[in-house]
Structure formats: structure tokens, C-alpha cells
């Protein structure tokens, strides 16, 4: 099993603990990675796309054309990169006129987008290529009694006709993956709500995050489990701002899915860089230690 990883600049440079956790898990699962350093930023599906859709298409198509050289699927770890690269790949495969226009630009650098590979979020690789059975077999320290509040984020599931990952209204993929680690997935009230990162009005973004925190707080989960570094940004660092704004003291640890998986596969807290997280209450670490110790 071999893939080309698209780490994206946020994971590589801001939250490298996520990259570490993915690499750790993949080694345990026998997934080989074909690292590539010619990729640029995806570029981002909010601001760069807002500036000029054609340039956005062109840079994304350049990235995909590099991945095409390896004849391996391109695997994204960040929902922003997923959004850009999946959308661009889909539209260029379906719109010949747009493809010609983009290729006209790529000619300047001797490149061509062909449309020969798929772009997929890493969680689909776990479900569809590794498979749930093999995933469960890799667990040596099941996360007993750990209640994980799911947060899907927007761009894993939507636009659904492009992503084709799961039902966008009643998804189950993250619950199944969390379940595989031995932890208990919690579908709280706002598990599908957007993190609000793209909104210019700060009050609006903080208000949305506050709803998510209250929902998780009501669910009595031990932590939040997610798959997107931008959502992580909103909820880890953002939690301090939200708490200040709504005058509450939320203490909800925010964990990238692969950090949970790697722990269950034998990684230490240090291996997965938990110490870089802003919200990390001592009682959560104790609970994590206990849940692993039961094994």
C-alpha cells in the first residue's frame, strides 16, 4: 500500500504533531509514503479561491500534476487541502474547457494536468484501503472508557457529490474510526457545525465555536476528536478566546484523530506531541493514562 502524502503547510509547519501521528500509525499499518517536496500550498479554498478562482485552479492542478508523475493516489491530511485538491481534481476531470485553460498556463512550466489519479482524505484510506479489521488488529492499548466528542468539520463531507466520503447529513466514518481505537464516540448536538474560521466577523466565528464547546460540555465527553488542523486552530487556541468572551472556563482537550490512533497503537504522549496543545488539563492526561493502562 503506497500513497503520496499531501501534508499541507498548516500541518507541516504549525501542527507537526499531526504529521508525526500519521507517520507513526502508517508505519504500524504498513502504509508506505512517497514523500514529495515540490508541492506548494494547496492553495487554500477560502482566501486564495476568493482572490481568483482560475489561479487557484492552476496552482492546485500543478500540485496534482506532480502527484500524477508517481501514479499514486494523493492523500490529504487537512480538510482545507482536501477541499481544494478534491474540488479542482473533480472539476478538471469533468470540464474539458476549464482543463484546457488551466493546462494552457501549466504549459509555461512544462506541466500538464492529466486527470489520472484520485485525491482522497486520509480517513478514507483507513476505512477503504487499510480496512476496519486491520485497523482494529493494530490496536494494542485500546482507549477504554475514553469518550470522544466527534467533530467532522465541513470539508471532509461536502460538497457530497465531489467528496463521496459519507452521508453528509448522518455520517458515521469518524464514529467508526474512533470506535476502532477502543474509545467511545460521542455524537453531540453540534457535531456537524462549522468551526467558523472563514468568517470575517470575529463575533460570528467565536459564537459558532462557543456553541460547539457548550454542546461537547453538555455531552460529558473527555475530549474532542477531529481531523482538520484549521478546526484544531479554532478549538484549541480559540477555546481561550471563546471562554473569555462567554465568561466560561471551557477545558475541552482537542485531539487530532491520528493522535488517538497512535496512542492506541503504542505511541507515548511525547511521540504525538500532546505538550504542544494549549488546552490539556491534568485530569485529561490522567484519564488517558488510565484508559491505556487497563489494556
Amino acid at each position, binding site marked *: 500500500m503506497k500513497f503520496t502524502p499531501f501534508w499541507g503547510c498548516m500541518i*507541516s509547519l504549525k501542527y507537526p504533531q499531526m504529521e508525526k501521528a500519521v507517520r507513526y500509525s502508517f508505519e504500524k499499518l504498513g502504509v508506505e509514503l512517497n514523500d514529495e*517536496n*515540490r*508541492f*506548494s500550498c494547496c492553495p487554500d479554498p477560502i482566501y486564495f479561491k476568493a482572490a481568483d*478562482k482560475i489561479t487557484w485552479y492552476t496552482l492546485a492542478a*500543478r500540485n496534482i500534476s506532480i502527484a500524477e508523475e508517481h501514479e499514486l493516489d494523493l492523500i490529504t491530511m487537512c480538510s482545507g487541502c482536501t477541499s481544494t485538491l478534491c474540488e479542482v481534481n473533480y472539476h478538471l476531470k469533468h470540464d474539458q474547457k476549464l482543463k484546457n485553460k488551466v493546462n494552457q498556463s501549466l504549459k509555461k512550466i512544462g506541466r500538464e494536468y492529466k486527470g489520472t489519479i484520485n485525491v482522497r482524505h486520509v480517513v478514507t484510506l483507513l476505512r477503504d484501503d487499510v480496512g476496519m479489521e486491520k485497523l482494529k488488529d493494530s490496536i494494542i492499548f485500546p482507549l477504554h472508557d475514553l469518550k470522544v466528542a466527534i467533530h467532522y468539520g465541513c*470539508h471532509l463531507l461536502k460538497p457530497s457529490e465531489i467528496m463521496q466520503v459519507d452521508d453528509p447529513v448522518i455520517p458515521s466514518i469518524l464514529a467508526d474510526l474512533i470506535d476502532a481505537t477502543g474509545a467511545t464516540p460521542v455524537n453531540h448536538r453540534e457535531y456537524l457545525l462549522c468551526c467558523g474560521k472563514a468568517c*470575517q466577523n470575529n463575533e460570528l466565528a467565536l459564537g459558532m465555536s462557543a456553541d460547539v464547546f457548550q454542546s461537547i460540555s453538555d455531552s460529558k465527553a473527555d475530549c474532542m476528536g477531529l481531523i482538520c488542523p484549521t478546526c484544531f486552530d479554532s478549538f484549541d487556541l480559540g477555546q481561550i478566546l471563546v471562554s473569555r468572551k462567554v465568561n466560561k472556563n471551557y477545558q475541552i482537550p482537542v485531539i487530532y484523530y491520528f493522535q488517538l490512533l497512535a496512542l492506541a497503537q503504542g505511541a507515548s504522549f511525547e511521540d504525538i*506531541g500532546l505538550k504542544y496543545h494549549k488546552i490539556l488539563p491534568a485530569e485529561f492526561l490522567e484519564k488517558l493514562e488510565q484508559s491505556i493502562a487497563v489494556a
Partner: protein
Amino acid sequence: MKTIDYSFRKKLNNVLGGSAHNYCYQCGACVGDCPAHNHLPEFNPRTIILKTLFGFEDELIGPDSIIWNCTNCYNCHERCPQEVSPIEVISALKNMAIEKKTNPSVVNNIVDRVKKSGLTVTMTELSAKRRAELKLPKFTIECQEELDKLFK
């Protein structure tokens, strides 16, 4: 009295994703599930598309336009029975706002960063330190030559 500005609509039709606004029949399916609307009632994808049908250029792509509060969550895209995809129309409107230079500065900052370094997130000493602590390979990127040619 305001009248419909067809020239604005024609311009919008020529921006990728913009022409679908013509199919909107104002059912409002996009509104109920819009998280931005639920937190900021002035943000309403139905009325944004209505304004495009009227061609109200100043309100849509003038300074401090409400369009910059779209969450980009795609709920409206999922709900729309006419395949208008309000988010894509809003995104097309943003492309037009850039030409008028009425956009928030964050957009220019990000585009500049990508053009100059290939990255949105800046490489810092802290990121190198953390990667080293985690025993990750050193981060390298080789795309500048090609980007320079593309942006020339």
C-alpha cells in the same frame, strides 16, 4: 428608484461559478441550515442571491460587504434544489470584489505569501524546533522557480 442592473449580472455570469445565480427561485432552502445566518441574521444566502438577481453591485461587492462572512461550509450547496450553489456564487462575487479592491486585506496577504514562498503558513524557527523534537524529517519545499514563471 432602483432598477435591475443587467450589466452587473452579465459580468457575474463570466466569473467561474457565477452564472448559476440565474436559476435561483428564492425558495430559501439555503437559509435554514446556514450557520452564519444562525449567528448573524443579516447574513442570508437567499437575499444575497436576490441582490445578484437585481444586480445591486455596491451592496454585494462594496467595502465591508456581508459576503465575507460566508463560512464556506457548503450546507447551502447541499440544500439547493436548483444547483445554484450560493457558496460558489458568493465566491465568484469575492473574485469581483478583489478587482474593485474592496476585499479584506487578509486575502492579499495570503496570496502574496503563496506567490513569494509557496506557503500560506510561514516557516518559523519554532516550526523547525518542533519538527526536530518530534524527530520528523526537515521541512523542505522546492516550487519557487515554477511559481515565479506562473506568476510572471
